[in-house]
């Protein structure tokens, strides 16, 4: 039995990743997790999935500036030492930063843990009984190839789902047309991307227009997106035995 933990930024990340894991990789929703992680404040969002005997705990930390806070509040470092956690994956937005800067920020939040961008890293952990064990870590930065955030990933995914391509292209043009005079705020790429995603779903599913992103998620067949498939490929390893050698 394996227990894995994924730290992500917020609720939207959890909703998309959870949907994807359930519909593409066969994970199932669980009410509770065996680590006993529960939200400690209004920013935390916890969701648990299982696949066979294995469990994956998705933790929304409440924004990219709150990884360190979440790790401290939930005593993730102690949890890694005291519980059998086979892997820890961190998924974070790249935003306007370089890959290196994002990686440094995440490493700073996970004291004593080795984590690599785009690759599994083996960590030798000595538990408090003095026994050695191994934990794999993975840092997934989205999008990997360019600046941006989850919204950018969603837009790219919609573009390559044949049934959604026409609408997303129209929405992109519409939002771009507003930049110049009507809504100058949309000059900022991240805000324009949020507007594109919000507008797309409002038009795509008008009866849920006033609801949260979670209500739209199931309307799209995300499995058809090749870009999302590539980006989320590391999720394939979740729930599977990964090589982890505790020998020095």
């Amino acid at each position, binding site marked *: 039995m394996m227990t894995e933990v994924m730290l992500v930024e917020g609720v939207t990340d959890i909703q998309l990743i959870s949907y994807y894991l359930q519909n593409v990789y066969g994970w199932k929703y669980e009410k509770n997790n065996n680590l006993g992680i529960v939200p*400690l404040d209004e920013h935390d969002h916890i969701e648990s999935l299982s696949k066979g005997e294995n469990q994956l705990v998705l933790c929304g930390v409440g924004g990219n500036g709150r990884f360190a806070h979440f790790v401290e509040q939930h*005593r993730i470092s*102690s*949890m890694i030492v*005291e*519980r059998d956690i086979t892997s820890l994956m961190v998924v974070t937005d790249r935003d306007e930063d370089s890959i290196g800067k994002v990686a440094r920020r995440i490493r700073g939040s996970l004291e004593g843990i080795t984590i690599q961008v785009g690759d599994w890293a083996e960590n030798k952990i000595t538990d*408090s*009984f003095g*026994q050695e064990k191994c934990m794999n870590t993975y840092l997934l930065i989205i999008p990997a190839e360019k600046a941006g955030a989850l919204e950018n990933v969603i837009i790219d995914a919609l573009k390559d789902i044949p049934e959604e391509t026409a609408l997303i292209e129209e929405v992109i043009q519409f939002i771009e047309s507003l930049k110049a005079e009507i809504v100058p705020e949309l000059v900022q790429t991240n805000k324009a991307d949020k507007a594109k995603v919000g507008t797309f779903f409002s038009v795509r599913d008008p009866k849920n227009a006033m609801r949260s992103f979670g209500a739209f998620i199931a309307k799209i067949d995300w499995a058809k997106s090749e870009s999302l498939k590539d980006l989320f490929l590391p999720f394939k390893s979740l729930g599977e035995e990964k090589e982890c050698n505790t020998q020095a």
Partner: protein
Amino acid sequence: MASIKLIEINGLRGIKKLTVSDLSKINLIVGDNNSGKTTFLEAIQLLFAESQLSSVKNVINQRTVLNLHDNSFYTSFIKMFNVEQDNKLLDFDIYAESNKGQIVFEMKGREKVVSGDDALQISTMSSRQKATYKKSSAILPETVKVFSGSIISQNGKKPIEKEIQFTSLDTTVTGPVIKKKVYYIPSFGHLRFDLLQNIVDNPEYKKLAISILKQFDDSIVDICYTKADDGSFLESVITENGVIMPFSVYGDGIKKILYIMNKLFEASDSILLIDEIETGLHKKYYESLFPVVFALAKKLNVQLFIATHSMEAIDAILKYGEYEEKTNDNDPIKVITLKKVNTENGKGSNVVARNVTGKYVYENRKAFEFEVRL
């Protein structure tokens, strides 16, 4: 009297090698069944045992507190040695660092098989006992096991080594009565009574005991010895209506509390070991009883080692640390979890320990399902 800071156990029962350091005034010993908790408590008692077989027997017999028969001493004795020892020399040793210096207890020897007649010669039985044995046993066993070895103890002074030899025929091992230096409360010890000895003649202590008993039964106004019809003395309760009730009619909770308080007083300036503190106690009394026990232990300068299976008991004990209110750098509570693990070469097992502060356990339990007991 010493309080111990570090203990090292080698080859005792299931413990091949175990070191636990940074011991505190209140030490919780937790772990799964068969993880070595009782062995750990026995090791502490053996540290303070004299170099004589009767001292060792007292420790062994605590495992069979309710067993009136005494015919398995040899087997119980041999089982004290780790069964996975490679050579024929049976050996275990316990070492401790205390505020009074080093303490060592070692027992070693060999087992051999001799004829029944030879065994009777070697036996620790008196001539009279031997004669009785011959009479009562229809057949003298053809072969009998004999243990020959020595006990070495050192407590501050020079080590004392004493040769020992006894056979599997020997059911009684006697020796001089020696004042105890460490006190032990077995999980069902309160069923043997001996509840009031140190309480009734100490007005202040008695008042405290009665105030705690009132939580169980508000009508209790006094505790004392009363004379039964046959002239024997009964440990009794007097109610507000003047009714005298022997403790035998009361539930385990009251007896357990008095038993702990009685032993606590006896263990002044010493060490008290409590096995399965929760036995006989309802969890609703934990939070009122444990702070009293700890406050008394502090006042009487008693180092506590408390073995427990109960998470409710652990949580109640941790409340004594007041970790929400205090930034306590000098945490009085240590939580020592024992765990049986397979040895690295895959042959056999050993016991390992996690020794963390009460605060560490408290904070982890708040944040996630921290497995204290495993």
